[in-house]
């Protein structure tokens, strides 16, 4: 790792002031992506501004939405009684990220800011139409994910919380890569008042996407059989060493069926 400085400001405003001191500074959340990439010199920073002190790890719930602070760790989302009772699929998703040691550090804000194409949270955010709240504005899920490792965040912008509308029902299933536990393909299905949303992570060349083929099938008939008749094209799917595009296309259907099975 290159040499750098470290600071831990005690508010969001102080963190923004701190990061502006250098053009090469980066925010640090759980460090589960950032520290390994700095170690491998895949990225560099001359200063890390740790958000741990900025008071961003509250979870609150109302009848219509759950609000999760960006520094809430995966383990805390997985075990939150609020999340477990109003949106259990999200608790399950968080409890399946990496392993228990990764979950003890990694955060929802870090995961979303990173937008790894195989990360789990983006599928929930997109399927549930969650809103990303930052120190500057509110960003819709649709606008937030721009491409592989790319988001709508401006330089120095901090995710402060994520607002999830509570659906009627939801479910997430992933086919984990056996070594990393990231999703080879992960499917999040949400049944909402205005219809069914299906978001797929791990498969797309540009990261998470909505799968309109399965959405249409489920909106006309909400059962596992209707997924069988869907054709998923391998075009635009990740063709990489761990799995081909057509294998992933098949996994999308299979994971969608398993997710649906948990809902009905």
């Amino acid at each position, binding site marked *: *790792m*290159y*040499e*750098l*400085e*470290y600071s831990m400001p005690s508010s969001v405003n102080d963190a923004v002031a701190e990061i502006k001191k250098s053009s090469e500074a980066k925010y*640090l959340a759980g*460090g*589960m992506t950032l*520290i*390994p990439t*700095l*170690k*491998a010199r895949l990225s560099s920073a001359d200063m*890390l501004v*740790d958000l*741990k002190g900025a008071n961003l790890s509250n979870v609150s719930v109302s009848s219509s939405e759950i609000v999760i602070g960006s520094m809430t760790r995966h*383990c805390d989302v997985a075990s939150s009684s609020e999340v477990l009772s109003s949106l259990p699929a999200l608790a399950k998703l968080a409890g399946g990220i*990496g*392993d*228990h*040691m*990764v979950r*003890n*550090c990694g955060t929802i804000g870090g995961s979303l800011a990173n937008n790894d194409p195989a990360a789990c949270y983006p599928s929930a955010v997109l399927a549930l139409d969650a809103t990303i709240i930052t120190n500057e504005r509110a960003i819709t899920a649709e606008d937030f994910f721009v491409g592989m490792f790319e988001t709508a965040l401006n330089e120095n912008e901090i995710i402060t919380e994520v607002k999830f509308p509570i659906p009627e029902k939801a479910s997430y299933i992933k086919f984990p890569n056996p*070594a*990393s*536990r990231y999703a080879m393909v992960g499917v999040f299905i949400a049944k909402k008042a205005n219809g069914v949303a299906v978001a797929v992570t791990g498969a797309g060349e540009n990261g998470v996407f909505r799968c309109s083929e399965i959405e249409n099938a489920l909106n006309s008939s909400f059962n596992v059989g209707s997924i069988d008749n869907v054709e998923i094209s391998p075009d635009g799917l990740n063709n990489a060493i761990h799995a081909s595009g057509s294998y992933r296309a098949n996994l999308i259907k299979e994971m969608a069926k398993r997710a649906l099975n948990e809902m009905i």
Partner: protein
Amino acid sequence: MEISITINGKEVKANIKANTLLSTFIRENLNLTGTHVGCDTSQCGACAIHLNGDAVKSCAILAAQADGAEITTIEGIANGDELHPMQQAFHENHGLQCGYCTPGMVMSSIKLVENNPNISEEEIRKGLEGNICRCTGYHNIVKSIKQAATEMGG
């Protein structure tokens, strides 16, 4: 920068470079070489320690992030000459071969059991997703953890 950490019950103060990994600090500054480093990719779990009561991978954390924290390493779990039940169970069940993964296995599984005293075999196997062993085939590791869980009060 100056940091102060309580490690295995003892407070240490040190002046470190901010890019020092916690695993490096533990091994090289404190000479506590029981914490191993087995990979570059944060996947093997050989470096597992307890940080403020949670099992974490010390190779993916900066020592600076642990300023003010309480840390336990594999050196800190025995009670004098009496091994921790998890260490004793690994010993009795041949839960190790080369021993490289073992400190991480022990530190990780202590927390798996503490957080779930009646842990099942399936939960143990799933819980060890972040700890890789290239020798044992895991069978005796799982057996060790099962025995320790009984002794730890499950």
